[in-house]
C-alpha cells in the first residue's frame, strides 16, 4: 500500500497554466525517472486529471468548454511524452475520446441530435466525470472518518488472572506466507532491499542524508545523488529521500517550477516512547 505521495503535485502544471508549455527540460538537472513516475501517479487516471483541470479553473462540470479542456489535456500529455515516460493507455484513450468530441462539435449539428443525450459523447463523458468525482469525494470523506490505528484506541484490560488454558490459535503456514506478502507489498522497494541484502542500504543512506543536513541547513536535491553509483545508487538515494519525507524528517522545497529541489531537515517532533 503506498502512502500519500510527498512530491508536490504542481510540478508539471504551473508550466501549463502560465499559458506556454515548456519547450524542453533544463539540461543540468538530473531527475531520476522514478520521480517522474511518481508525479504521474499523483493523478489517479485521466478522469482525475480532467477533473483537476476543470476544478482548477472553477468551471462548471455540466458545461465544460471541451476545446479548452482538450487543449490543456493534450499539453499535459505532450509534456509527459517529452519526458519520455510511458503513458498509461487510459490517458491516450481519453485523449482520443476528447479529440472525437471536439471534432463532432466542430461539425454542423444535425437537428435530430440536439435532443437526444444518449449517444452524445459529451453527455457520456460528463456523466463519468460526475460519477468519478462523487466517488473521489466519498473516498475523501471515508478517509476522514475516525478509524482504528489512527483515531480509535480500544480499552483493554489484563485477563491474566483468568485461569483457563485458552485454546491456542490455529495458524496454517499459508497464513504466514500471506502475511509476509502483505509486508512485501506494503514496503515493496524497501523490503526488496532488506531481503536481498544489497550492499546499498536505504537506511544507511537516510542516515547519511540526515548527517549532511546537520552540517548544512539546505542541500540540493541533485547533490544527494552520486551518478557513479549507477542506477541502483540513484534509486537508493531517491528512496531514502522519500522515506525521510514520509517520516516528516525532511522538507523538500522548490522555489519555482523546474527549479532545483532542495532538502532541509524538519524540526523533529518530540516523540513519545514508553
Amino acid at each position, binding site marked *: 500500500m503506498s502512502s500519500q505521495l510527498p512530491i508536490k503535485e504542481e510540478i508539471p502544471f504551473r508550466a501549463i497554466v502560465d499559458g506556454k508549455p515548456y519547450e524542453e527540460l533544463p539540461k543540468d538537472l538530473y531527475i531520476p525517472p522514478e520521480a517522474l513516475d511518481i508525479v504521474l501517479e499523483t493523478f489517479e487516471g*485521466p478522469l482525475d486529471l480532467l477533473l483537476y483541470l476543470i476544478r482548477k479553473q472553477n468551471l462548471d462540470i*455540466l458545461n465544460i468548454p471541451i476545446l479548452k479542456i482538450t487543449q490543456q489535456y493534450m499539453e499535459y500529455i505532450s509534456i509527459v511524452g517529452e519526458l519520455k515516460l510511458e503513458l498509461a493507455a*487510459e490517458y491516450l484513450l481519453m485523449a482520443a475520446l476528447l479529440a472525437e468530441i471536439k471534432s463532432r462539435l466542430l461539425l454542423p449539428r444535425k437537428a435530430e441530435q*440536439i435532443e437526444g443525450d444518449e449517444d452524445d459523447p459529451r*453527455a457520456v463523458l460528463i*456523466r463519468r466525470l460526475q460519477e468519478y468525482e462523487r466517488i473521489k469525494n466519498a473516498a475523501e470523506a471515508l478517509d476522514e472518518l475516525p478509524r482504528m490505528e*489512527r483515531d*480509535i484506541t480500544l480499552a483493554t484490560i489484563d485477563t491474566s488472572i483468568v485461569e483457563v488454558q485458552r485454546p491456542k490459535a490455529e495458524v496454517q503456514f499459508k497464513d504466514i506466507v500471506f502475511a509476509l506478502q502483505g509486508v512485501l507489498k506494503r514496503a515493496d522497494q524497501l523490503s526488496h532491499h532488506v531481503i536481498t541484502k544489497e550492499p546499498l542500504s536505504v537506511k544507511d543512506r537516510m542516515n547519511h542524508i540526515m548527517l549532511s543536513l546537520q552540517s548544512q541547513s539546505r542541500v540540493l536535491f541533485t547533490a544527494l545523488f552520486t551518478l557513479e553509483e549507477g542506477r541502483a545508487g540513484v534509486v537508493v538515494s531517491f528512496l531514502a529521500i522519500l522515506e525521510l519525507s514520509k517520516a516528516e524528517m525532511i522538507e523538500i522545497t522548490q522555489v519555482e517550477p523546474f527549479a532545483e529541489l532542495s532538502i532541509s531537515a524538519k524540526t523533529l517532533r518530540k516523540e513519545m516512547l514508553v
Partner: protein
Amino acid sequence: MSENIPVESEFKKIIEALLFASDSPMSLQQLQAVFPELETPRKQEIQTVIDAICSDYQTSAIELHQVASGWRFQVKAEQASWVARLFAQKPPKYSRALLETIAIIAYQQPVTRGDIEEIRGVSVSTNMISTLLDREWVKVDGHKEVPGRPALYVTTKQFLDYFNLASLEDMPALQELEVLAIAGEMAI
C-alpha cells in the same frame, strides 16, 4: 433467565467483564453463547444491561460503542490526542487509489473489478484487490452471470468495524448527481 442466574447487578458485571475481556467486538448472540444452556439470558435482557453500562460510562474516559460486529469498549475521542502520544509510530495512511476502490465497493456493492475500473477510469491492480481481501475489508460474494463470471465484491463487517461504523447506512452520504441536461448551446 432462570433463577440460577446471578442477581441483576451481577449479571451486568458479567456482561461488562466479557465486553472488556474480549479481543473483538461482541454481538448479543456471542454474549448469549457464553452462558450455560439452561441459563441463557434473552437478547432483550442483554440489551437492557448494555444500555445501562453505556450510561454508567458517560462521565468516564471510555465508552461502550456499537460497531457492525458488536459492542466494544474504546477510548473516547476527546482523549484521543493524549493516547496518540503513547504510540511512537505513525498510523498507516491509505493511498487514494485504495480509498477510491473501497469507496466504490462500499457504495455500489456488489461490484466486479470491471465496474471499479469503469468508474475510476483506470485499471485496478490485482495487488489492490488482494490487499483489500487480505485486510478482510472486502470479500467475494458470488459471481456475475456474464462471460468470464467475474467475482462480485462486497464489504465486510470488519471494514465497518475499522471505520467505527455500525452499518453501511452510517457511511457519509453520497452526493447527488446533478441532473444532466445538455442544451444545444453548450459551450465548445
